[in-house]
């Protein structure tokens, strides 16, 4: 992929509301599905137990099939570091997430996959969740560059910290190449550490 292909200035797609706070990564993908050496099958198991227990779960509803912008509550993705969680969401079709706050490791994992996670106020989130539920076919635009979310004729403020925003907008979120550019500075930093060279 070229840098241009990787730029995530904005993501537009149909929305899917998932109300509730503190939805953890075990809920997103239960641990028994982690016994895989690839991420390929993760999309099939997203929210598997929650969907089995609740036939009305948004990920089960016909209206939201094909959605790509997930609208959540507070502390979404807390818990385990498993990248399987954002992988499962991504492979189901999610391309951007708007919420009140995010588990930090989950947020970092999403950034590494080019999935912007933006935060918005509780009132705006509740409005957006209801609006999407009313009009599931109306596209949601997550504007990473301008830090706003647009739905119909309304725009709400949304935020993403500067570092990840620059990575996503600039298309440098797949960071290995960027980190390798430091070259010998990596080794010279290591050589300044007494525990690396020996006390």
């Amino acid at each position, binding site marked *: 992929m070229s840098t241009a292909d990787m730029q995530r200035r904005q993501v537009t797609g149909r929305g899917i509301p998932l*109300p*509730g*706070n*503190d939805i*953890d990564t*075990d*809920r997103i993908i*239960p*641990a*028994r599905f982690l*016994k895989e*050496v*690839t*991420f390929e099958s993760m999309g099939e198991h997203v929210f598997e*137990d*929650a969907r*089995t*227990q609740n036939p009305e779960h948004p990920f089960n509803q016909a209206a939201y099939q094909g959605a790509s912008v997930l609208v959540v*509550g*507070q*502390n979404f993705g*807390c*818990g*385990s*570091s*498993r*990248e*399987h969680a*954002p992988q499962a969401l991504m492979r189901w079709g999610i391309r951007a997430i708007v919420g009140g*706050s995010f*588990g*930090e*490791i989950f947020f*970092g*994992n999403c950034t590494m*996959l080019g999935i912007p996670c933006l935060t918005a106020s509780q009132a705006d989130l509740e409005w957006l969740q209801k609006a999407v539920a009313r009009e599931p076919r109306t596209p949601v635009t997550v504007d990473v560059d301008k830090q706003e979310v647009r739905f119909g004729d309304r725009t709400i403020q949304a935020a993403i*910290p*500067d*570092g*990840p925003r*620059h*990575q996503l907008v*600039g298309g*440098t979120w*797949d*960071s*290995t190449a960027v*980190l*390798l550019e*430091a070259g010998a*500075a*990596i080794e010279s*930093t*290591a050589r300044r*550490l*007494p*525990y*690396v060279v*020996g*006390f």
Partner: protein
Amino acid sequence: MARTLLDKVWEAHTVRVLPSGQTQLLIGLHLIHEVTTPQAFQMLKDAKLPVRMPERTVGTLDHIIPTTDQTRPYADPLAEEMAVHMYRNTREFGLPLLDMATGRQGIVHVIGPELGLSQPGMTIACGDSHTSTHGAVGAIAFGIGTTQVRDVLATQCLAMTKPRLRQVRVEGALARGVYAKDVILTIINHLGVKGGVGYAYEYAGPVIERMSMEERLTVCNMSIEGGARFGYVNPDRTTFDYLRGRPHAPQGAAFDRAVQWWTSVATEPGAAFDDVARIDGSAIEPVVTWGINPGMSVGITQTIPSPEAQPEPERPTFREALAHMGFQAGQPIKGARIDVAFVGSCTNGRLSDLRLAAEVARKGKVAKHVRALIVPGSQQVAKAAEAEGLHEIFQQAGFQWRKAGCSMCLGMNDDKLQGREMSASSSNRNFIGRQGSPTGRTLLMSPAMVAAAAVTGAVADVREILG
């Protein structure tokens, strides 16, 4: 200006400032295990990249391994495949693997400190959220995802944003029957499960200073449950005494030179924090979680709170928790019947934890309807416990004595809850489905409280058993 440990360790490991404004942070110790690495190794192979600093990488097997029969191939073909990949990847990339044959295998967050791999002033990363554990030795240690594991393997670095720093001071002194687990559950209850988002926690104050290293490991382990990606305790005499003589710690005169450097990285008197939180340690009683996140806890003498008493946005989660757990608001937590008791995990699977559980196990027998497991955190913990005869105390009381691994903390091996079983667990997460059954229920508590629940058959006050 007086500086914090976070300031000094961050600066010492800064390779450069990235165009995004983030820090390119050098990782001094990369710990790896079988569950979150196979995809990372595949990405490395696809990109034809070597491991940048194999000598700063250490692997073990913990999440999927059985705690009964560990003969290869494992009975579970999926677990076996993950083990095969771990052996193959570490061999191909020339990385050390602390497997069963070494006698040093165990939960990655137990063996790091135990072997002296984790040291003050280091940056430590691992594809596991409980990497925060290693902060107890005075390190900056945090969990990462698999694509970040790839970055560390390929570059020994991560692109990171420096968090704000909150000092969490635990004042006073702990009462008898109150342990490190009760302290961290209280901190999470007070500051909230997302209270630490954007922050690192520096644990301080008389209660933390008086804690043993193993107690500090328990506290730092659950930083992530409070939303803080990492937490640490400043290195002190307790830290140095703990590390002295450990296989990977500096030896002889080098140890004394190390102590000088380790001392120099500690937070200086008068350093400023972005926030300070104070907890009265003297007021803490044994804590039990009643809900579906680690912040939903009460003291053993208290009752389960009412959703109506919570701020409006919290009420749906409280109602969901009550429904899942089958509890009523206002019900005492004491006396809640349990089906399973689990002592183990990276939170509470160390020798001192097993000793506390054994002290209770000496005074009773596991209730007839309870299945009780003791799972040491590492082979070395198991060996030390057996040398003291703890395994016999447990077995005589009706507990199963298992081999080392993550086990029923997350149910990736055969150790799982069945159906709606209620578990008293010394682990770290009470999330719905966490212990292997989609409808299973978890009550988090200290290892002594788990043992007390096991012999009572219901949630009990360990102080009444200890007398």
